[in-house]
């Protein structure tokens, strides 16, 4: 067993991917930034002293405190406070957790749906493939942000108003997830078509391996690379889509704000000079998306040089 493990480690160490990672400062820096952001967001209780959603810790006296390095700043609020006296840093990290949860859930949802449909469509072909591909065509006719807005709008029509805030986050995950799946379906179908014609698939069929095993044991691992690449870029897109929807006021409600919600709420104070309330969440969001995109860009070059 131990032998196996060190074998795997050696394999990773000897692989071209690892070599390219070591050689790429952008890949290393962006993964470090992402590791820090993920850690601080998911273990936010351990990282910051305030819980901005605990009403007892709020004080309106301390509202609109600018960042600590400016004239009126307080050292206990490094990035200042918002209109309700909530510590910006804490609020941002709590918000980032919501954004990440929505982003990851949405992208996993669309990945499972898209890869499932794309893989089976590419493998079985025929009318089923036609149907799935036409479906992606039709959906691609509707841009993803519009799709998400529509789903959200429909959900508002179906779900009662009281339930809406509670359900908002699930609606959002579904709305973003459903708008991204065609990408996964197309890429995994195209990759499956290539793999299906390779002889190892024929060999498995001739041996008598069942379709299900051929698809998931043989083909799936071989098409994972392009899927991982668009999955990474898709994660950045999903996080941005969440922020956009929340900014437009149809996403996460202000009671549990995400980064987008924070930017929208802060936007109202921009003209009166309280720039930090909107700028810090925005900078944080861009840093997050930029790091993911840098990593995705590196992955695209390393894992799949032919993918556009």
């Amino acid at each position: 067993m131990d032998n196996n493990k060190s074998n795997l480690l050696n394999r990773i160490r000897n692989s071209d991917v690892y070599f390219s990672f070591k050689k790429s400062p952008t890949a290393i820096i962006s993964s470090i930034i992402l590791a820090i952001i993920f850690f601080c967001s998911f273990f936010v209780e351990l990282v910051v002293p305030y819980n901005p959603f605990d009403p007892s810790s709020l004080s309106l006296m301390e509202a609109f405190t600018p960042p600590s390095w400016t004239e009126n700043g307080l050292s206990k609020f490094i990035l200042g406070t918002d209109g309700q006296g909530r510590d910006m840093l804490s609020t941002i990290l709590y918000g980032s957790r919501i954004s990440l949860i929505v982003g990851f859930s949405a992208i996993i949802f669309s990945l499972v749906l898209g890869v499932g449909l794309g893989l089976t469509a590419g493998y079985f072909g025929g009318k089923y493939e036609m149907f799935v591909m036409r479906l992606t065509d039709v959906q691609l006719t509707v841009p993803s942000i519009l799709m998400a807005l529509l789903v959200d709008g429909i959900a508002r029509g179906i779900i009662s108003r009281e339930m809406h805030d509670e359900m908002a986050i699930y609606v959002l995950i579904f709305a973003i997830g459903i708008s991204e799946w065609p990408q996964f379906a197309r890429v995994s179908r195209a990759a499956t078509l290539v793999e299906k014609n390779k002889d190892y698939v024929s060999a498995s069929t001739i041996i008598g391996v069942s379709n299900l095993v051929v698809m998931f044991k043989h083909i799936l691992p071989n098409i994972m690379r392009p899927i991982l690449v668009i999955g990474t870029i898709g994660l950045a897109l999903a996080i941005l889509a969440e922020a956009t929807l929340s900014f437009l006021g149809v996403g996460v409600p202000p009671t549990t704000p995400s980064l987008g919600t924070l930017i929208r709420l802060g936007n109202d104070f921009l003209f009166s000079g309280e720039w930090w309330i909107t700028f810090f969440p925005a900078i944080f969001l861009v840093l997050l998306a930029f790091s993911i995109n840098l990593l995705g860009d590196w992955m695209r070059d390393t894992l799949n040089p032919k993918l556009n």
Partner: protein
Amino acid sequence: MIKYFFKRLFQSAVVMLIVAFVSFSLFNFVGDPINNMVGEETSDEERSQLRESLGLNDPVHIQFSRFIVNASKGEFGISYQLRRPVSELITERLPATIELVFISALIALVSGTLLGVYTGINRKGFFSDIILAISLLGVSLPTFVIGILFIYLFAVILGILPSFGRGEVVDLGFWSTGFLTTTGLKAIILPSVTLSLFQMTYIIRLVRAEMMEILQTDYIKFAKARGLSEKSIYYKHALKNGLIPVITIAGINIGTLIAFSIITETVFQWPGMGFLFIQAVQFVDIPIMSAYLFFIAFVFVMINFIVDILYYFIDPRIRVKAEAASG
């Protein structure tokens, strides 16, 4: 040619029909249209009367064909929230959106293609690295953040450009344009640049990838082996092949810009269709939502159709394939 043309037309019609069905289902099955149209105090009798008069008791296929007929005439009923015909609201807002999208598409396509070709040819130059780094930052910046940044910079701090609205517009009867006044022209700068940035970075990366792939092909190598000049190899042999997919990109680009104009219009309070739509979503104003969906899909399908026809004239491979098919 004619067969190819009709085949594409037929495919477009099928897509439109599916979208129409979705729009129709939206209208009919999400919430109760009657509830949305009348107040609380309306009696049950009045409600069923209204239901009858709107034809909501007819079989679904009759309702659907009526919906298609109305949609093709541009009629989508009456807005729940604004109590005005949807067609009227849309024609009122259309010019603002079209002008915004037109300018943005121009910026995105022209600069995106130029920079993409440049970075594709000069793979390792200093400027290429800068352009690529910026373009990656560009896809990481959500449109609304760019908008806020621009407003803060150019409206709040510098105070040289307006932060909202279209400025003065000139009414030409069927069209209201902001192109003819200084304030109108000034007003469109920030929103159109904001809207185009995301698309532009996307186009840069696509065109660059395309150019790089073409420069690896055997026919470019063979052209080099024949001693053709670099100028001819890059700007004639590679570029012409590289520009073929740009047509597709341009098509998708325009549709996406219309969708993303929702965000830009919200940030800049631009009185266009996107602004109308986002309000509709917030108030569950189904007629506007379904009309908007229908409209966007129509634009998309039309653009795709035109792109396919353009391909026919530009790419000899498709032309021959299509001719062989139609005998």
